[in-house]
């Protein structure tokens, strides 16, 4: 075998070796990518949301808006208190309820309810909302996020489990009821 032939065989072996590594790399990439994207793919498979009880209706008197908390349905033991989520429950007339996310529709800061002036105010950038959740002033582009809710056996349930954000409001009505 000539010198040149020997070289070209070794070059080919190097190339084969690289090819083998490339194939193994591609095969390994599949589980790695699936692992990395599991927070996204899980949503499609099981969904993050479920119906949760906020407690008996007696905690939410008619005409008032009260803070309620729930434990997030998808939870790990090391989540600690971060899995406790707050929301605002408005009992309009014992028939009609509204459940607002705590997160401002601007950038997610916790809005506070001021019963005296019937406004929600955000401490971050000064967003304000009327009692029905519609936008009153400030930088938010829309009203407060609302959870779907139902009343069963004297308890109020909401469909929750995912942090509402401006770009993702699938579980939330796009707007509160009309402006006050």
């Amino acid at each position: 075998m000539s010198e040149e032939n020997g070289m070209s065989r070794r070059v080919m072996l190097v190339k084969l070796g690289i090819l083998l590594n490339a194939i193994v790399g591609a095969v390994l990439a599949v589980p790695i990518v699936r692992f990395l994207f599991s927070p996204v793919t899980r949503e499609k498979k099981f969904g993050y949301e479920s119906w949760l009880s906020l407690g008996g209706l007696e905690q939410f008197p008619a005409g008032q808006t009260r803070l309620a908390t729930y434990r997030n349905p998808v939870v790990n033991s090391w989540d600690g208190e971060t899995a406790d989520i707050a929301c605002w429950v408005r009992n309009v007339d014992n028939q009609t309820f509204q459940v607002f996310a705590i997160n401002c529709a601007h950038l997610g800061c916790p809005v506070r309810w001021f019963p005296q002036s019937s406004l929600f105010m955000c401490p971050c950038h000064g967003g304000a909302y009327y009692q029905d959740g519609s936008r009153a002033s400030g930088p938010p582009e829309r009203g407060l996020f609302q959870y779907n809710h139902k009343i069963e056996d004297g308890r109020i349930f909401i469909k929750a489990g995912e942090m509402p954000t401006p770009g993702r409001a699938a579980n939330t009505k796009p707007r509160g009821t009309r402006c006050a």
Partner: protein
Amino acid sequence: MRLVQKIGEWFDLRLQLGASIRETARHPVPRETASWFYVFGSAALTCFMLQIVTGILLALIYVPSAGEAWNSLQTLNHGISLGWFIRALHGWGSNFMVAIVLIHMVQVFLFGAYKFPRELTWVVGVLLLLVTLGMAFTGQIMRFDQDAYWGLGIGASIVSRVPVIGPWAVNLMLGGPIIAGATLSRFFALHVFVIPGLLIVFVCVHLLMVLKLGINEWPMPGRIVRRATYMQEYRELTHKQGIPFVPSAVWKDIVFSGFVLLAIAACAVYFGPFGPGGQPDPTIIQTAPRPDFFFLWLYALLSFLPPSAETPILLIGPAIGIIVLLALPFFAGEGEKSWRRRPIAVLTILLIAVALGTMTHLGQHTPWSPVMDAWSSEPIPSQYVHGRTALERQGALVFQAKQCHNCHSLDDRGGERGPALDSVALRLTEDQLIRQVIQGGGNMPAYGKNLSPAETTALVGFLKTLRPATQVPARDASRAVALGETATDR
């Protein structure tokens, strides 16, 4: 001494590094670069090394778990001997590092160091700025308190606005549906493994290029950079009149780095560690989240952008900024280096500095946010109720009870979201006051549904008294004519 020398030789025979280290240390640099203006790059590297050491020390105790992180920070602050000091060093070290990286960047820009053949050094420098800011942001999340929690919320809200993939990007960023254990874990991985790894790689490439291409010479007005001749000119500058880097230039780097470390330690001792603030419990809503110092300008910007322009500016603005920075050496790779002959460069720096400074200042006292407790903690100044009628005083009560004070200041106390009302009666007539209160507008909520007619009457009665005694109130001339009154009647 002989023994030390022998040991040194034993190692060098095996490592074969001595010659190249000596060569690197003694490589000639242009005489004028042994300057106090050239010390910021090495100082940034010194800060980074301090961050690595203190970061490892903190990792001995810190628990990157959403349920335990806050408690482990408390233990660091209070339970472990000098744990507070290590935290303070790490926190102040990060502030100094960002500041020095920015100063370094400004110096490099004004001295034209990004021009041929150092374009790639600048590009890697921009990447270093980005990863440094990435360290600052993820580090703020390691301090897992209320600010970190809601800061993540702000981050998620911004990410969610990316068209099409926004909702998935949020899940990916948070590691799940909400800010929780998985979120802290992945930001810990970023802060401790991924970004420092990138930082080390970029620093190595950056330094290698500085050594191989040589430090940028002191810019002289009129000495023009041309691709054809620059390498030759630089070689002459270094080899004919250059000085060895060690010790002629390096002593200033060493002295300055020492002062920086001393300053960090002094700040750490005097001011102590940063937080942690309140527990990261999202059901505690009595909180006003603030980002760390270097992101305050962004926080301010977010409150001033008009709602309709916010999403495009938030998503496209940073991309444009980064592209401009990366592209700079490619459209300004030749020409004048001296800042004395580059007025637009100087003006750009001044403009950016003034803008960032103003935004940061505003971010510190947040005039756009209602003062949430002003209605119950800031009384109406006595001169505004003294000698008023019962109706007007009742109006002052309405003013407090309906939280007007949260957004409107009286005598410089209260919110600044809306205009100060000390002289509102000079600007608005009674009818205009009623309309403004009931219908709102100009960024004020409408109070029509929340005020009874009696309350509105009382409130407007009070507002009408808010003017300097020596000046006449606003009046509606047409109304006066229509009612057959003279101006002095009102």
